[in-house]
């Protein structure tokens, strides 16, 4: 039985060459993402902003959004957002945080219920007061930083510091791009988004660690191979595994995206972007070449080759004790 081979054996693709392109692109994308965050902002959900969220289903046919909007705007509750949510009779109502502390939020809920009356079924009601929203936000941010920190320590423990730093830069870059994605697409940024970000962090590192493991093995075995060649070889050898794993995870996420329903839609979309698109790209084109810049592989024996010319062939003149420059 002939088995599926997505990646042929013994590929010898020169990945490291692209670092002159990939680094600037990534830097640019990161700056873009950060700018988007500050100017376009994230679509904070009520978990972090406080307020009311109601998912209602009209009992008699498709919802008349403009009529509902008019009714709710008349209640004097400030900013009211309505949008269709999946089916035509499903409406998502978002109302900003009411001044007056936690009790005021409850009053607002009562008003909305009275105003909408018996015309709707309440599928979901969420009310978050100012105290809890503040806490969730700080917990979320602290959580992200804590995770980054713990993983950094762990990697430092298992690999040399350059690997830890390289992995961290690559993966924080992942997070930054994902946040940019979330800003552009205006997906809800709530607690499940933090879950998505943390999972992307963990999974993307998963990927990076596999490549680093191979690099470490190669470093021990081939003491004379110049860094770009060694890194290329490592990536090429793990390419088959990477592609297959990315395909399986994508299949799983695709299933969630298509059939998982509206409730976790923003969560799975974010995961898809972070894990599949960005994670793959960074492990190969950022996390590996960055080791060159961090000086990994220098000082191995006395033969550290300088940067080989762009058409890397494996054999290059050796100059002793010369730090690899690019």
């Amino acid at each position: 039985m002939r088995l599926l081979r997505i990646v042929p054996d013994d590929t010898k693709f020169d990945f490291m060459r692209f670092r002159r392109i990939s680094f600037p692109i990534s830097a640019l994308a990161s700056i873009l993402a950060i700018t988007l965050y500050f100017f376009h902002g994230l679509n904070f959900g009520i978990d972090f902003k406080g307020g009311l969220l109601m998912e209602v289903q009209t009992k008699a046919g498709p919802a008349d959004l403009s009529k509902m909007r008019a009714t709710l705007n008349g209640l004097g509750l400030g900013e009211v957002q309505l949008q269709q949510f999946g089916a035509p009779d499903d409406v998502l109502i978002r109302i900003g945080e009411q001044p007056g502390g936690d009790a005021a939020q409850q009053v607002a809920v009562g008003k909305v219920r009275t105003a909408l009356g018996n015309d709707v079924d309440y599928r979901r009601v969420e009310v978050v007061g100012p105290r809890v929203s503040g806490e969730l936000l700080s917990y979320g941010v602290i959580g992200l930083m804590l995770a980054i920190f713990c993983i950094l320590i762990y990697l430092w423990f298992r690999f040399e510091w350059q690997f830890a730093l390289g992995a961290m830069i690559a993966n924080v870059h992942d997070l930054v791009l994902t946040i940019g994605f979330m800003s552009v697409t205006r997906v809800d940024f709530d607690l499940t988004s933090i879950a998505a970000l943390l999972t992307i962090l963990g999974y993307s590192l998963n990927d990076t660690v596999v490549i680093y493991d191979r690099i470490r093995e190669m470093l021990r075995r081939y003491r004379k191979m110049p860094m770009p060649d060694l890194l290329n070889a490592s990536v090429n050898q793990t390419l088959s595994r990477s592609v297959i794993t990315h395909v399986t995870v994508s299949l799983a996420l695709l299933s969630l995206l298509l059939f998982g329903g509206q409730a976790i839609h923003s969560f799975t979309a974010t995961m898809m972007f972070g894990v599949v698109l960005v994670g793959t790209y960074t492990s190969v084109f950022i996390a590996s070449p960055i080791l060159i810049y961090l000086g990994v592989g220098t000082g191995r024996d006395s033969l550290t080759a300088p940067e080989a010319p762009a058409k890397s062939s494996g054999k290059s003149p050796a100059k002793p004790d010369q730090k690899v420059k690019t």
Partner: protein
Amino acid sequence: MLYFTRWKAAAIVLTALIVCLCAVPNFIPAKTVDSWPKWAQRHVVLGLDLQGGSHILLEVDTKTVRKDMLESVRDDVRRVLRDARIGYTGLVVRGNSVEVRVREGANSSQALDKLRTLQQPLGGLLAAAGQNNLDITSDADLIRLTVTEPAITERVRQSVDQSIQIIERRVNELGTVEPLIQREGTDRILVQVPGLQDPTRLKQLLGKTAKLDFRMVDTQMAPEQALQGRTPPDDEVLYSTGGPPKTPYLVEKRVLVSGADLTDAQPGFDQRTNEPIVSFRFNTNGARKFAQVTQENVGKPFAIVLDNEVISAPVIREPILGGSGQISGSFTVQSANDLAILLRAGALPAPLTIIEERTVGPGLGADSIAQGKLSSYVGAAMVIIFMLVTYGLFGIFANIAVAINVAMIFGLLSLLNATLTLPGIAGIVLTVGIAVDSNVLIYERIREEVRGGRTPINAIDAGFSRALATILDSNITTFIAAAVLFYIGTGPVRGFAVTLGIGIITTVFTAFTLTRLIVAYWVWWRRPQRVPI
């Protein structure tokens, strides 16, 4: 790597089997499971987003607790100084302390001694640390008693415990499925009621402190007069419940009988007017006090005060010696019933504020379960097919390992009585994708070794040994992320962290043991000449 002693193999299979069996109670109808012994009944709990229900987070009003404590200290100071016949002036609550000045000529050090009797060590651990409930300082003739922070924290903690009991009684009256009521942090209470769709009534029941007092109405001055002029120091103006318009009453501050002495309260109907009323009964203590009050004050009105509002102010027509009576005054059947519930359950020691509420209707819950199931099946199917196509026979081995992996996840979740939420189901689907990764790492390594020229058995052996270290490393990073998420997350997000974390543990376990075992047996049985991947 491929050698397993019989014991080891048996242990692995047994462990996997037992953990998988733990998942069984989830798939059998509840009635059958209930007949099993307690230890076999552990199953996964469906989160509120799958079951439907209400999640309400309440916070104890610490300010009120502080105020009540200070007023209580002030009353104690008044009592102590009066009993000792020490003249004082300027007894007032200021900030966190009660201040009092000893009059000229009175014995200041004696006053200090008497007041020190109010100082008591706090219970438990705090007593060991030498903490008291009050700090007493004196400055010439000014004595200041400050309530210590540990005392307030302790009182808040007690309030939470008491409140939980009272909430339990109130919620049970709603006749719902077993609610979850537990403390969260130092001053918060979590109430989760599965199956409850409209929490409005629940919130009404939780929002009322339900402090009932019986006090005399001051007939010597009209309330309007008191509002315009000065209210006498022993009285206060309270307004009626309901309205508008709200009628003012001038009521004595002194509480004659309190709701704490009630033994029962029932809704009913007035025999003459057929209006809804609440009838109540006092315990012996309360009955005695009530009898005394009604005897001494025939013909005068007395106020029934609920949470500082006057429900009604009937005139005492005759002494009530039996210790029972009724409260009437613009009740509906529902509100009479609710008040009876509140009185029976008892008054909350401090007001509770709702700081977070999440309710999911059953429609959404059922939809979520359906979507969760569908996406899981489709995702699993796609992955299984892909593995078959890519790795053939070894793909079958990987699929078996992943299937057992998922069963073990459910087993562990059941053992822990963990909560399964919609993101949790997403976590399981994701774990399937990640679990496959472990097998892929092993297989790709084996293929490399074969290409490198090793014999089949050596290649398989080398593949396992080289890959396992990488599997451990890579999964630990995801585990750290899951652990952090568990710590900072709540509700559905925490459910995701739990399934992801457990999924990683089972993945590493199955990769290290089950996959190896299956391949080892295949090698032993088939003695292959080449590795078919």
